[in-house]
C-alpha cells in the first residue's frame, strides 16, 4: 500500500442520515483499500459477536468513542486515513443526526469533496436536503451523492434517476453546485471499490475510482495571491547595524511567515500590506524547502519585502491591483453551533485568518429554512440554525467573499466569557455603505 511519492492528498467529508449506511460504506472503503489492520478487525469481530452481529459488522470499524458505541450512533466528527497507490485520503466522518449540522460544517469545511449518502428506499429526505445544502453553502469543489442500498430496490434505474432529479432540482434553488451521483450497495460492495454487475445501465466509475481521479486542482490556485501573516520573524540585529540590517531586502529584513492561501506569489511582485495599505515588492520567498522564486497556494512560506514597511500578525499581503476588501461591516451566513442562542446586539470575538477582532451582531436578516429554502424572519438563531446577519467589527478586516475565497472569506465567532466557538461564518459581502469610506488610502512604502 505504498503511496506514489507524487500522489496528492484528498480531503473527503461524508454525511448521511442514521442508517443510510455511511459507516458500512466507510468500513468497506477502508477494508477493500486494505487500510484496516488485523488487530482492529479482531477487536471489531469480538465486539460484533458480543452484540450478536454475525461476522464482522463493517460499521463498527468506524465507530468512535465509548459513549457513542453505547448509543449505537456516531455523534461527532471522526477522522480516518487511508491510501491507495494513487492517492492519500483524509476522511472526515460527520454524523447524520439532524441536530448535528455543526458537525457537518466542522468536518466538511476543509474538505475538497463531500460524499452525501442517500438510502435509495427513502429517496430524498429532509436530512439529504440539509446535507446537500450545507455542502453547497460550504462551496466544496466536488459533491458526490452516493445512492446506497440499491440492492433493496432491485437495482432499479428509475429509482436512481428520480433521486438524481429531485435532489438536483432542490439544490439548484439554493446554488448551482455540480453534483455527481453514484448508485451503489455499500453492504455488497457494488460500485464502492469494484464496479457493479447488477447495474449495467450505470456507466460511471465506482466511488473509489472517482475519488482517485477527481482533479485535485485546488480552486485557490486560480485566485489572486493572499498571504495572511501568521508570524513575524524578527532577525537578530548585529551590533553595527540599524534595526533593518542592510537596506536592499537582504536577509536581515524581518520575515513574514504564513500560508499562501490563494494564488501564486513571485519575487518582484508588487504587493500591498492590508489593512494599513503600505506598498512594496517581494524581495525574497523562503519555502520550507529553501529559497524559491515562486510559491503556489497551500505553501507555508516566509516573505521578505523590499521596503522597511510595518507588518504585523493578522495583516494580509496581497498583490497590488487584485486586492481583497477592507472594512468593518460584513454581511455573513452563520452556522450557529452553541446552545445559547444568537441574538441581535450581542458581542463576540471574531477570528478570520490570523486576525482577532470583536463583532457586534447589528442585524439578523433571516433564518434559512433548510426544508423549504425560505428566508424565515427570526429574532434569534438556535443551535444548528443557519442565518444571515450583519456584523459590525471593532477593527478593519481584510477579506474576500467566501464564494470567491474559502480562506479569506471564513471566520469563527467565539463567546467572550466561555471562549467556546459558537459559530462558523461565511462572508457574503461587505456592507457597501461603510465599505467605501473605510477603504484605507494606500501609502507609499
Amino acid at each position, binding site marked *: *500500500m*505504498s503511496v506514489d511519492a*507524487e*500522489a*496528492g*492528498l484528498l480531503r473527503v467529508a461524508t454525511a448521511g442520515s442514521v442508517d443510510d449506511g455511511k459507516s458500512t460504506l466507510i468500513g468497506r472503503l477502508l477494508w477493500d483499500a486494505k487500510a484496516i*489492520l488485523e*488487530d482492529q478487525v479482531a*477487536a471489531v469481530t469480538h465486539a460484533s459477536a458480543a452484540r450478536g452481529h454475525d461476522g464482522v459488522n463493517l460499521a463498527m470499524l468506524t465507530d*468512535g*468513542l*465509548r*459513549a457513542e458505541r453505547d448509543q449505537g450512533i456516531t455523534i*461527532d466528527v471522526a*477522522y*480516518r*486515513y487511508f*491510501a491507495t497507490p494513487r*492517492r*492519500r485520503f483524509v476522511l472526515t466522518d460527520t454524523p447524520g443526526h439532524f441536530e448535528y449540522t*455543526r*458537525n457537518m460544517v*466542522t468536518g466538511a*469545511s*476543509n474538505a475538497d469533496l463531500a460524499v452525501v449518502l442517500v438510502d435509495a428506499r427513502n429517496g430524498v429526505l429532509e436530512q439529504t436536503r440539509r446535507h446537500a445544502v450545507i455542502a453547497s453553502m460550504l462551496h466544496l469543489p466536488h459533491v458526490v451523492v452516493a445512492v446506497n442500498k440499491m440492492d433493496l430496490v432491485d437495482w432499479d434505474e428509475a429509482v436512481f*434517476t428520480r433521486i*438524481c432529479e429531485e435532489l438536483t432540482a432542490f439544490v*439548484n434553488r439554493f446554488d*448551482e*453546485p*455540480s453534483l*455527481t*451521483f453514484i448508485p451503489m450497495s455499500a453492504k455488497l460492495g457494488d460500485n464502492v471499490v469494484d464496479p457493479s454487475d447488477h447495474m449495467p445501465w*450505470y*456507466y*460511471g466509475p465506482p466511488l473509489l475510482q*472517482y475519488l482517485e*481521479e*477527481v*482533479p*485535485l486542482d485546488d480552486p485557490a490556485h486560480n485566485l489572486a495571491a493572499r498571504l495572511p501573516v501568521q508570524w513575524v*520573524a524578527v532577525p537578530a540585529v548585529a551590533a553595527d547595524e540599524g534595526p533593518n540590517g542592510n537596506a536592499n531586502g537582504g536577509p536581515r529584513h524581518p520575515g513574514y*511567515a504564513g*500560508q499562501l492561501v490563494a494564488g501564486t506569489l513571485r519575487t518582484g511582485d508588487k504587493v500591498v500590506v492590508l489593512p494599513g495599505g503600505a506598498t512594496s515588492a517581494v524581495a525574497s520567498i523562503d519555502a*520550507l524547502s529553501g529559497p524559491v522564486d515562486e510559491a503556489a497556494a*497551500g*505553501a*507555508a512560506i516566509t516573505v521578505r519585502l523590499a521596503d522597511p514597511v510595518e507588518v504585523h500578525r493578522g495583516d494580509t499581503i496581497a498583490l497590488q491591483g487584485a486586492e481583497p476588501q477592507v472594512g468593518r461591516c460584513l454581511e455573513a451566513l452563520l*452556522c450557529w453551533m452553541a446552545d445559547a442562542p444568537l441574538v441581535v446586539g450581542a458581542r463576540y*470575538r471574531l*477570528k478570520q*485568518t*490570523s486576525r482577532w477582532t470583536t463583532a457586534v451582531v447589528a442585524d439578523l436578516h433571516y433564518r434559512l429554512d433548510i426544508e423549504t429554502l425560505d428566508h424565515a424572519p427570526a429574532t434569534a438563531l438556535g443551535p444548528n440554525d443557519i442565518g444571515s446577519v450583519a456584523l459590525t467589527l471593532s477593527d478593519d478586516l481584510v477579506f474576500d467573499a467566501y464564494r470567491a475565497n474559502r*480562506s479569506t472569506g*471564513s471566520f*469563527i465567532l*467565539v463567546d467572550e466569557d466561555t*471562549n467556546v*466557538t459558537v459559530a*462558523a461564518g461565511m462572508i457574503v459581502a461587505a456592507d457597501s455603505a461603510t465599505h467605501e469610506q473605510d477603504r484605507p488610502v494606500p501609502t507609499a512604502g
Partner: protein
Amino acid sequence: MTTTTPLDSLFLDELDLEAAAATRPAPNHLDALEAEAVFILREVAAEFARPVLLFSGGKDSAVLLHLAEKAFAPGPLPFPVMHIDTGHNFDDVLAFRDHRTTGKGHRLIVASVQDTIDQGRATEEAGGSRNRLQATTLLDAVASHGFDVCLGGGRRDEEKARAKERVFSFRNKAGQWDPSGQRPEPWSIYNGRIHAGEHMRAFPISNWTELDVWEYISREGIELPSMYFAHRRTVLERDGMLLAVCPQVVPRGDEVPFEDTVRYRTVGDMSCTGAVRSSAATVAEIIDELAMTRVTERGATRADDRFSEAAMEDRKKEGYF
C-alpha cells in the same frame, strides 16, 4: 462551477476526469501535510503566551521537532522542549534527546516521573508501567512552569479515541479532556482562547499516518534513536509481546529470555513497550515492511493499551497526552 443539467451529464465520464487530472501536477501529499503542520505550529507560537513542545525521543516527536525547526528557521524555536522522563528509558534515548535539543541550542526541560513518585504525587503501579503516571508529572510541570499549551506528536490514526480529537484540544483546570464538549473547529481557524489555569494541547501532525511519518523521515533525513532499526536484543515473550529484558522486565515463572532480531515501532516505557521481529535496518526497509504490516502500531507494542477497547479514552480524560 458547472450548472447541472440533463441526467446524462450527471454520470461522470472517466476520460474527462483523466484529462482534467493530467493538466496540473498534484501537490505531493507530504508537502500538504508539512504545510498544514507548520501552519499549526505558527498559530500556536503566536496565540499562546507560554507554549512547550513535548518530546519523548520517539519518531513522532522527532518529526514534530524537525517541523518546528523548519517553521521558525532561521530563527530559534520560540518555545522550550520538555521531556517527561519515565526513568524507564531505552539505551540511547536520553543521548538522542540531548543531541536533538540542547545539542541544537534548544531549551530543554526534563520533568521526571521518579520525582512525582518521590513527592508522593503518584504511586508505582502493579505492572511497573509508568505510562499512566506520566499524566501527573506532565500536569504538575504544566502548572509549575505556567505553560498554556503543549505541542504533541499525537496522530489521529493511532487509536479510535484520538480519531475525534481536535487539533487544538482544550483541557479544563484539572487538565481533563471532555470528548463530548470539544470546540467545533471549522476550516483551519484555530481558537486558542483559554482562561488562566486552563490549557490546550495542540497536535500539528494530527492528520499524518504512521506511513506518512516514515516517508517524511526518509525524505528529510530525520535522525532517530537506534532502537527503531533492527538489532539483536535479549527479549522474553509476555502476553503475546516481545519485551526487552531490563531492570523493569525480569523473567517470571517459566519465561525464558532469548536473543532475537527486533526493532521498536514506538518509544515508551521500557517495561511495557513491545518489540517486533524485524530485519528492517534502514528507513527504506521499514517503509517496505510497513506497506505489508497487518497490525497497528499500538496493537503491536503497547501492553497497557490492550487491556480494554476504551483504554485510551479513559487515559485521555485523565490528562494523558
